[in-house]
Every structure is written in C-alpha cells, then in structure tokens.
C-alpha cells in the first residue's frame, strides 16, 4: 500500500511539473542592444547567409566559412575557439576591456577573458568555469621570450561557494620559429610550451602550447581551463 501511495505521489509530482505555474511577471525575450555586439552579430549573420548552407540545424564548418577575405573585411577583431571536451567551436568578438584583460563573447552567452597577449584568464557560462587565475608569470615569460619556471594559480568554485585554489609550477620553453597557417594566412611564429605540475602534490598538471610573434603576441594556443573543460584552442583572426 505504502509503495503504491509513493508511486501515486510521484505521478502527481510529474503532473505538477508539467502544469507549470504562470504569473503576472513580464518575460520578454532577451534582446541585446549593445552596439558592439549587434555589429559583430550582423557580420556573422551576413557571413552565414553567404555560406548558403541549406540546413539550419547543421553547425557550419567555421574554417570553411571564414575565409581570409571575410576576416580582413571584419570591422572588429575576432578569435576562433575550439573546445573538444564540449565539442564547441565558435567565433568570438571583444566585448569589454579592463586594463590588460579583454573579454570575448560569441553568439552563445559564453565568454573568455584573455590577457592582452592572449593568455587565458577566466571563462564564464561554461558548466565548469575557470573562475579566476594568476597568470602574471606566464605573461611576463611570453612577452620577454624568456624560458624558465613560473608559478600559476587557478581558481574554481566548489559546491559550497568555496574558491578552490590550485597552484602550479610551470616550466616555459621556446622552440625555433616555424610557419603556422591561420585561416589561410601563414605567419612565422615561435612555439612555446608551458609544462605545469601541481605545487602541493607534485602531480602532473597540464601542458599549454602557444605560438607567439616577435612582439610576444599569442596567435595560436592550446590552453588548459580546468580538469573538466580541458584545453581551449584559440586562434586570432585579425591582422
């Protein structure tokens, strides 16, 4: 009997969930009115319209769609981002600058914050975000092209709102310049590798790879954003 009652109750709860409550609150759709965003969005819309892919559900192959001509025409800087762990590919444009940090955003409400040189600082809107970090050592090493050991800090949020801090000790090394193609344009870039171990445990951490120009600007990179999100692949799509 008791079991039957419980089952009945669960059925009732399911019915309740289906019978969504309504109220007098206004619930208009979100419409972003930020001019910078609408410019970038218009550009993207134009690009996708031109691509002529008939099936709207099929994700466009961004590498095929974004020709170098289109990139050169874009009025705003863009970056291409690929995150394999969540099978995401996106074109982002800058939406805010705060000192050395630039926040990039795409069609979805996801943002990446990169340092001016292109080192990943924080993410927002992913399930497992990189909440904050200390990347000053890495930034200096890349800007000055100086190999050596730097320290890093990654902060993520725990279930009870704890800011869980993980320190890493990272060895940065540089290779010989090589030719790298970025969306149809080839640049001569210096590869850099950042191998990090967890300071507290000595456990293997992660490895970041950057391709930088003579000014220390990162053009292509694979950067770790946490255990769950894994590596974020970033390419700069502007002159």
């Amino acid at each position, binding site marked *: 009997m008791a079991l039957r009652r419980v089952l009945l109750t669960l059925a*009732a*709860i*399911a019915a*309740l969930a289906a019978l969504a409550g309504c109220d*007098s*609150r206004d619930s208009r759709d979100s419409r972003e009115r930020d001019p910078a965003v609408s410019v970038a969005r218009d550009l993207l819309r134009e690009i996708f319209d031109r691509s002529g892919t008939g099936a709207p559900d099929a994700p466009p192959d961004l590498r095929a769609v974004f020709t170098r001509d289109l990139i050169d025409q874009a009025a705003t800087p863009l970056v291409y981002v690929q995150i394999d762990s969540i099978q995401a590919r996106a074109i982002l444009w800058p939406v805010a600058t*705060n000192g050395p940090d630039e926040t990039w955003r795409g069609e979805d409400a996801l943002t990446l914050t990169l340092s001016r040189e292109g080192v990943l600082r924080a993410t927002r809107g992913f*399930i497992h975000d990189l909440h904050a970090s200390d990347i000053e050592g890495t930034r200096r090493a890349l800007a000055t092209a100086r190999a050596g050991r730097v320290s890093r800090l990654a902060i993520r949020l725990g*279930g009870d*709102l704890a800011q869980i801090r993980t320190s890493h000790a990272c060895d940065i090394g540089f290779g010989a310049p090589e030719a790298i193609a970025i969306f149809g344009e080839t640049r001569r870039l210096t590869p850099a590798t950042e191998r990090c171990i967890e300071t507290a445990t000595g456990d293997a951490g992660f490895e970041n790879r950057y391709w930088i120009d003579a000014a220390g600007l990162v053009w292509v990179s694979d950067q770790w954003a946490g255990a769950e999100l894994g590596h974020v692949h970033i390419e700069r799509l502007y002159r």
Partner: protein
Amino acid sequence: MKRLRWYLCATVATLALTVPAHSDEQHRLPFRPTLNTYGLPGLIDMPSAHAMPDGELGFTFSHAVTGSRGTLSFQVLPDVTATFRYAGIPDFAPGPGTGTLDVYYDRSFDLHWQVLDERGWRPALAIGIRDIAGTGVYGGEYIVATRHFGPEDRVAVSVGLGWGRLGERNGFTNPLGILDDSFETRPGIVDVLGGTLNTDQFFRGDAAIFGGIEWQASDRLRVQLEYSSDTYREETADGLRPADTSPFNIGATYAINDVFTGGAHVLGGDTFGLSLSLALNPHRPSLPPGAADPAPRPLDVRPRQSTPYDTGWLDQPGGADILRANFEQTFEDQGLYLEHLALDTGRATVRVRNTRYNYSAQALGRVLRAMSASLPPSVEVFEVIFVVEGMDTTRVRVARSNLEALEFHPDGSSLLLAGAGIEDARRVADPVGLELDVPPPRFTWAIGPYLETSVFDPENPFLFNVGVSLRAEYRLGGGFVAEGAIRAPLFGNLEDARIVNAPPPNPPPVVRSDSARYRAENAAYLNRLTLAHYGRPAENLYSRVTVGYLERMYAGVSGELLWQPAASRLGLGVEINHVRARAYDGGFGLRDYSVTTGHVSAYYRLNDDFDLQVDAGRYLAGDWGTTIRLDRTFNNGWRVGAFATFTDVSFESFGEGSFDKGIEVEIPLAWFVGTANTRTLSSTIRPVQRDGGARLNVQGRLHDLVTDYSRPMLQETEAMVWR
C-alpha cells in the same frame, strides 16, 4: 509559492542522475561509508566506525519481512552523525500487553560519534546510541572500531561491543560493571510516551560482541559479511523470523551513481532484504554554483584620463530618462528591478528589488555591473540598497575604481567585499542632485500548483494534498500590502491525518491537533487574506504589522519588531499576536477559541556553519515556554536544523512525544538546477504535532526577510560576486 515542498526534491534529484559521476574517489570505502539498514554508517544491521562526508544528507530505505525502515541521516559535524528513523513492523506487538498491531509504526532518533579517526595503525573508533528518545524497540548502544586493509584500503574490518538490542546474542556481564554495579542491569522502559531521553538505559545490561568485514570488490560494488549480535528477539517472538537462526548476515551494495546505492542482503540465511539509499551533499551539487546561468555582462570600465571626468551631465535635460533607460536595458531579464536612483556628480545610490538571485553577493555583483554600464564616469561611489517588501535593508558602498581594479584579480571577490562599506541604509542620507523613482507594479498575481505534505504521522508515513493555488498581491503604497491566497485541493490523503481520539490527561486546549479537520473540508478554501505594513521605524529596526486571515487555522493581528544591525551576527525580535481560530471550512467564519500569543526572539549566527535561535514566550495553547533551534548552514543556502520547545504543559499532558520537536531541511532549488533562483525546497519533519508548544504560522517574519543582505551573508556568498 516561494517554498516548494520537499517532495519535489525527489524529481529534481533524479535530474542529478543525468550528470556523470564525479571521481571514483567518491566510491571508495573510506570516503563514503556504506549505510546499513538503519541508515547509519555500517555493514548490514551492524554499525561501523565510519563517518559520512561532512554535511552529507542520506535517505535510506530498507525492507524485509521483519519491517521497513526509512532513515534520514545527517552528518552534522565531520565526526557526528544524527539520524531520524521511521519504521513499520507488520503484525507486531511492541511490548507486553499492547496486543498485535497490523503495522506498528516506530520513530527513533540516533547519534553516532566518531571519537577517533583512522590514522596510521590506529583504527577509527565510534560510539553510538540508537533510539535515544523513543519507545526503545530498536534501542541499543555500541562502541565499534574499524580499520582498513589492503591496497587502496579496499577491505574494512569492524569489531564492536553492543548493549541493548545489540547485546542480545551470547550476551555477557557488562564490563562497565567495574565502574558501577548499576551498569549490569538494564531497566525496563517506563516512559511509554517517548520523546524523553532513555538515559537510564544507555550502556546498561548484558553486552555482546559483533563484527564484520566489508570488501570493495569494484569501484561500485561492495560485499559485506557480518556477525550480528542482534537476535531479533521480539520479531522472532511474533513469528517474523524463525528461532535459532545463524548469526551471520551477508549482503552486497552497488553504487548506481553518486546519489543512489542499491543493496540486497540475507539475515542469518532465512530473511531476505533490500535497501536503497540516496545521498545528497551540499558540497557536491550536480552542477557547480551558477553553472547553468549565462555569462554575466563584463564590467564596463571607464576610459582612463588625467583630467577629472566631466560633471556637466548632471544639468543635462532628460538625464533621468536616459539613466532609467540605461538601467532598464542592463537589468533586462535579470530579475532585478530598479526602484529608486539618487545621484550627484560623485555618488549614486540605487534601490533594487531582487527576484532571482539566491546568492546575495551575485545580485550585488550584477547591480554593480549595471551601474558601471549606466552611470557617467564621474560617479566614483556606488551604493546599492536592496529593497525587501518595500523596506530598505543595508547600504553597500563600493568605490568604482576598486570595482574596476578587482574584476579579474585572483582575490577579487574577497577584496571587493572586504573593502565595501555595509551599513544600515538609514545611517547616511542619499546624494542630492538627480532623483528617479520607479514604483514597483501595484498588482501582481500568480496561479500554480501546490503540494502540501505531512510525513511520518504516527499512523501514516506519508500524507499529501495536491491542488491549485491562486495568489494575488496589491501594493497600496507607503509600505502597505494586501495579499490573498486561495487553494483548491484536487486530490490527496491529508485528511487521513490522525485525529487524537484519546486525549492525554489535563490536555492543553486543542490548537493544532485538529488540523486534519481543516483538511477534511476538501473544497476550495481561503488560505490567507491579509493587509500588512512593513516599515523601518529607526536605524537597525524593522517592523511588520499583519491583520486578517493569517494562516489556515488562525485569523487576527500580528505585530513584530526586529533589531538587526547590518554587520551584526545578533538580531533581537519581539512578536505579539492576538488570534482567533478559523472555521474548519476555510471561509471567513471564526470559532470560539482566541488567544494572545507572542515571543521575544534572539537570532545569533554562531559562526559560518551554525545559526542559533531562541524564542521565549506564550504559545497558541496559552502555554508559556521556550523554543531552541540550531541550524547547520552552508554558504550555498542549504540548511539542516533541529528544534525543540519546552513549555509549562507537562510531558504527560502533552501526550505522545512529550514535547514539540522536529527537524527542518531546506535546500535551494538553485543547488539542483545550477541557475539563479530564489525558491527553496523545504520540509519540516515533526514526529507528532500536538497542542503544546505550537506557534502561529504568520507570513513575512522579518529576520528571514532582511538578513540576506547583511555583511555576514554577503561575505559568505562573496565567491558569486563576479558571476
């Protein structure tokens, strides 16, 4: 409908299933102990010396022909587990002279204390008392040691000494007799009402040895073998188990995922049983906090310049309209509403209503970013006042340059809150220059389903009603709010709640024990119809006056005054009500009984983990006394608490249970779904609702309303300020 009922949890918890498991660490023996058929860390029936992870809330259901047990276990502290159990034993005579009942329902409360944790060669050691305050069917005490062996600690061996029910098999003279001869005999239970501590029983009478071994066979599968010191003497006497069974029980459990574990066992080769346990932990949400929210708007940083920012904008015509449009745009779809803006060239104060963010620091962060996007660069001081029921709460003051400097600082959240001024909104005056008033909508309404439940009634484990509720609210201005709610139950069994037929001797007036009569009227009823006034009579003071049909059972007038400084851990309140009992049919009628009831209350935030509340005064039955309430709290809004009320109604006159007490669990819906949401799932488990120590259930009590924006609460949620 701010509070959905607990049972929605079940559905939402199933959502948690869709999320992949965390690390395999979660499944290892030392990390998450098996919960036994009593819902305590253990093997099958026997306890072990394990402890659950801190804050873990376990629900265990076990079934065998010897009875069904449902247990709520909570790891109150890293080394203390508390459990509440509701069991049903079929065809059972609970004691001599009681006769055999179809189903005997038994409620019991246990404590398990891990005195020593396992370290080096030292085993963990735990002491426990089962059924501390009940009628003693499951009563027993134990001391047990557990140690892990083998690679990855895959084997755990437990050995213990039991008393009472755990001292039945091959019992020997109590070794504690060397302390005092009185330990050698266990007296019979005299208290038939339950509810009082059975201290004269604890660790008395014969003792017996029990033990067992548990093997982590794979990441998810565990096997248990135990030597039980429990002979099921009374169940055997009632024919539920054969006599002279084997002392060995064997079982296995399988962790279906991080939340659910299923198990099967055989007691002594004769009795087959099944178990299912569900474990939630505030530290382990299925999604990280705010994970399903869209990325916030980044801060709009002012351009750097060496000369002072222009201040001519203050005299610009139409400035107020521009600012209003700015805020409307930045607040859009955020559940934040601007109510008032006052600013001069250097300082701006906004009053905001927050309807979405359960983490107050997240609401603060969103408002500060909207200010950075909306206000001219010369405004350097941002002040945010959250408005609750028309009352200003605290004034949070942040330097705009600080905000800009800390957005991506590794310690940005802590530094921002540490550097913020948080004081009573009334302490300083608003800036004078430009003012904008956006009154909230006067009329709001909502229609939706409701679920009302009563769990662990003495004769029915689960009672509920499902129906439709219509709620409307009209703001008259000046702090006055008229509110009404009508409910139409559609189906359920709440009216089956036991109506006490045989009252105890010299009982107090019937004030709550007739609640089933109210529910028996299954037509639509007026749940509430009130006119309330909320106000701020002075600095640090909040006030409420409510008149009308205050709750389902009482109508009258209720007044409350709360002293709660913005940065204080202490709040003091006084509440006085004069009420008359409402008619059973849920209309406008009243019954004869009236009473003046009220309390003085002290609220104290002991530390980041515990809240203490003490209320002293007069209760609904005219009885005088005190309620003590202790809550374990978590930064994410989880709250698990216990309360007890002692009044001048004697235990005997109170009846079954001896005094009013209960457990309350509150979990924010946001914890399950990972998006900002102010709703909570809450449930109060009261072993017996009687008439002594009963309180009026008036809406809008001040302390809960206004403390969200105090310094302690803002700092505990500070991690969310940049989300």
